[in-house]
């Protein structure tokens, strides 16, 4: 297990649980995804890009599973209270009040759009390289 998973503060755990529920509700009530004229591009493995209609069946399953896993990761809105990182290392911008964030099990936080784009390519935390699915499983076990 990665180093950054060893010292979770109680604060962060409650944060994670709180947002877990919120996420589900948000997804059920949210507006349908916007109509897209362009065929979306997916990345079944790092450095491999393919249009959605060119994916093999195996890749489609992999992507569907990945989307499912990502939707289990807690999200929230930046309220300025985070004592930890205030910057998203992916776009190198500071978080702005009201921006949508995603919290990884290793406690690293990113903009939701930034990290989701990366997680579709590689299911690891960009900062600590912790595989997200392994960390997800251990979170479930301790709950």
């Amino acid at each position, binding site marked *: 297990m990665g180093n950054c998973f060893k010292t979770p503060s109680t604060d962060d755990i409650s944060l994670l649980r709180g947002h877990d529920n919120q996420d589900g509700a948000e997804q059920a009530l949210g507006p349908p995804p916007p109509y897209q004229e362009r065929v979306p591009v997916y990345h079944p493995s790092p450095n491999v890009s393919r249009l959605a209609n060119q994916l093999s069946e195996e890749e489609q399953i992999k992507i569907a599973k990945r989307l499912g896993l990502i939707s289990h990761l807690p999200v929230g809105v930046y309220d300025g209270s985070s004592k930890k990182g205030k910057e998203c290392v*992916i776009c*190198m911008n500071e978080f702005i009040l009201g921006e949508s964030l995603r919290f990884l099990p290793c406690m690293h936080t990113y903009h939701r759009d930034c990290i989701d784009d990366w997680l579709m390519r590689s299911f690891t935390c*960009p900062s600590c390289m912790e595989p997200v699915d392994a960390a997800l499983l251990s979170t479930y076990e301790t709950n």
Partner: protein
Amino acid sequence: MASMEKRLQKELLALTKDPPAGVKVDSQRICTNLSEWTVDLEGAPESIYEGEKFQLMFKFGSRYPFESPQVMFIGEHIPVHPHVYSNGHICLSILTYDWSPALSAQSVCLSVVSMLSSCKEKKRPPDNAFYVKTCSKNPKKTRWWYHVLLNKVERNSVNMYEEERPCDMK
């Protein structure tokens, strides 16, 4: 795309203001085209490249930082190093499989500098002649098998990338 440009501007500023030892960027020269940088490197004191001057080229694609930049040595003077081919291509895992968006141009410079500084003997990779004749112009298209001594051995990449032959034929 816009967010990429902002990030590149920040990275350029950071690298100009606070470059790792032996690294120099002329931001003036770059600002016309943010997606292509030339970075000057100088061999570290007390390393076998002491005083030698090299140039690195960075090309940032539209998917940066989700995909690694293309990085290679350019110009007359290519370092003679077991992980650097005579055409400037570098066999360094963070430039492909071990890339993460938390890395930056600065961390790539640091890795290249430390790769040079830690080298004990000037020699080309064993398959240099063959590689240089057959490789793609873009080093990112190479299906590298990392030279085990310097880099972590990569994980599943052998099955995933079929495009080209490995740089190490063993």
